């Protein structure tokens, strides 16, 4: 369970966002360009420090401006898939997935067992020895997802996970996200521009505008405008 209230003065506006995500729930964050969606993810992950607010993950404070608690990014156990996947291009698929597990100092058997599990789960068996820089967009996104989930994170965050993917890859990545979040029962925040994506993967949608929550509800509650652009709703 994630409960976050974060406030940060940015160049153009003050970001003041409240967000909640339950176990196995995918909350889609939408909004126009520059609404503060990615910044919200960066604040929750700890890559950027909020000015005020608090972030609780599974009942534990990882940030609290009042008490001065600030768990470092490395220790927050957050699986973060960045825009354009950010797979390490010089490492193989196997090494990409093993990267986070190596920081956990697992023994060799446990490590290869866990990597093998995610390689199979994400349908990457045939390409596990290939350098990630040589993969297609969809394959990279599945590697990034496997890498983020292999460390058993307490929260999964996805920044524009379907951007720059072909239709077939979007379907397989959406399927993988929904399957994994349900199986692992972890909260998930996903940033996207497209209402269709929010409909397909989201349990709840949170719309931001200039750093503020302006609308929240189920995908089915989105007013039908015939547009696929959140800015026009």
């Amino acid at each position, binding site marked *: 369970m994630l409960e976050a209230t974060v406030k940060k003065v940015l160049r153009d506006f003050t970001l003041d966002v409240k967000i909640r995500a339950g176990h196995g729930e995918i909350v889609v964050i939408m909004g126009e360009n520059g609404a503060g969606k990615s910044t919200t993810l960066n604040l929750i992950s700890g890559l950027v420090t909020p000015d005020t607010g608090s972030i609780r993950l599974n009942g534990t404070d990882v940030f609290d401006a009042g008490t001065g608690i600030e768990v470092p990014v*490395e220790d927050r156990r957050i699986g973060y898939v960045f*825009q354009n996947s*950010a*797979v390490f*291009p010089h490492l193989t698929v196997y090494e990409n997935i093993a*990267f986070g597990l190596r920081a956990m100092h697992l023994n060799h058997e446990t490590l290869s067992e866990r990597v093998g599990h995610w390689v199979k789960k994400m349908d990457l068996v045939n390409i596990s020895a290939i350098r990630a*820089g040589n993969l297609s967009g969809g394959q990279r996104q599945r590697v990034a997802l496997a890498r983020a989930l292999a460390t058993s994170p307490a929260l999964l965050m996805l920044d524009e996970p379907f951007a720059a993917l072909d239709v077939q890859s979007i379907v397989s990545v959406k399927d993988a996200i929904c399957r994994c979040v349900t199986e692992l029962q972890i909260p998930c925040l996903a940033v996207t521009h497209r209402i269709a994506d929010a409909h397909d993967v989201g349990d709840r949608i949170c719309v931001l505008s200039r750093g503020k929550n302006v609308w929240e509800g189920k995908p089915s509650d989105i007013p039908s405008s015939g547009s696929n652009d959140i800015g026009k709703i």
Partner: protein
Amino acid sequence: MPILFPKPGRCRRTLITIGASVLIISVTLYLALPVAALFLRTTPELFISSVCDPRVISALWLSLFTSTISLGIVLLVGTPFAYVHSRNTYPGKMIVDTLVDLPLVLPPAVAGLALLVLYGRIGFIGKYLNMFGITLAFTTLAVIMAQIFVSSPFYLRQAKSLFEQLDPAYEQTARTLGASPIRIFWTIVLPLTVSGLVSGAVMTFARALGEFGATIMFAGNLPGVTQTMPLAIYSGMQGDFNIGITIAILLVIISFAIMIAVRILSQREIPHA
């Protein structure tokens, strides 16, 4: 409607081809002829006998030794400096950037004089070092200091630019995966920038090897102590001309090998995401 760009006829095409060929040949000859003249000025027998001359061996050894040490120091200090510099904003960053680039445009003689004024026996820092019996000017250490001063921008500029261009999402992802900053640097940043860093390092080594002006001002021209290959050429001009020619040929061969190495290394790029 008037034809602005008529299709070139056969005669016109021939003229263009001749013009282009003349241009390429003249530029190539302008660069190649002086180098060829060096090789034509000597004979294989004379070259081999001069290479074995103790003055040549001493200058070659000193040049390779000091350039390697200079490069090592530039890599050890310059790599973390360039990384920290590129990843942070701080007051005066632009001034630091300019100072890093300054030796590129500063005449080497000015650099040598500046080092002498600072570290010389009566220099601002040198006079205090002298009180403890430490002398920097006109020593092998002075050669290394002069080489570092003039050659480091070649590496620092390249390293800064490579680190700045690297997508921060790689390092941010690695952080969320629990990696320490040192592990991120060794396993992500360095492998993704290594080919560019190596070509910067090779250029630094080449510049250090060819350094003359700053060295002669700050370190002097003492055979076996501060007389590097370029200084030995200078001495050869006043004494044994064959020695100068032999060292010059050696420098041409080393420089050519360095440029080939840079070309090969710059082609070995890692596929990016």
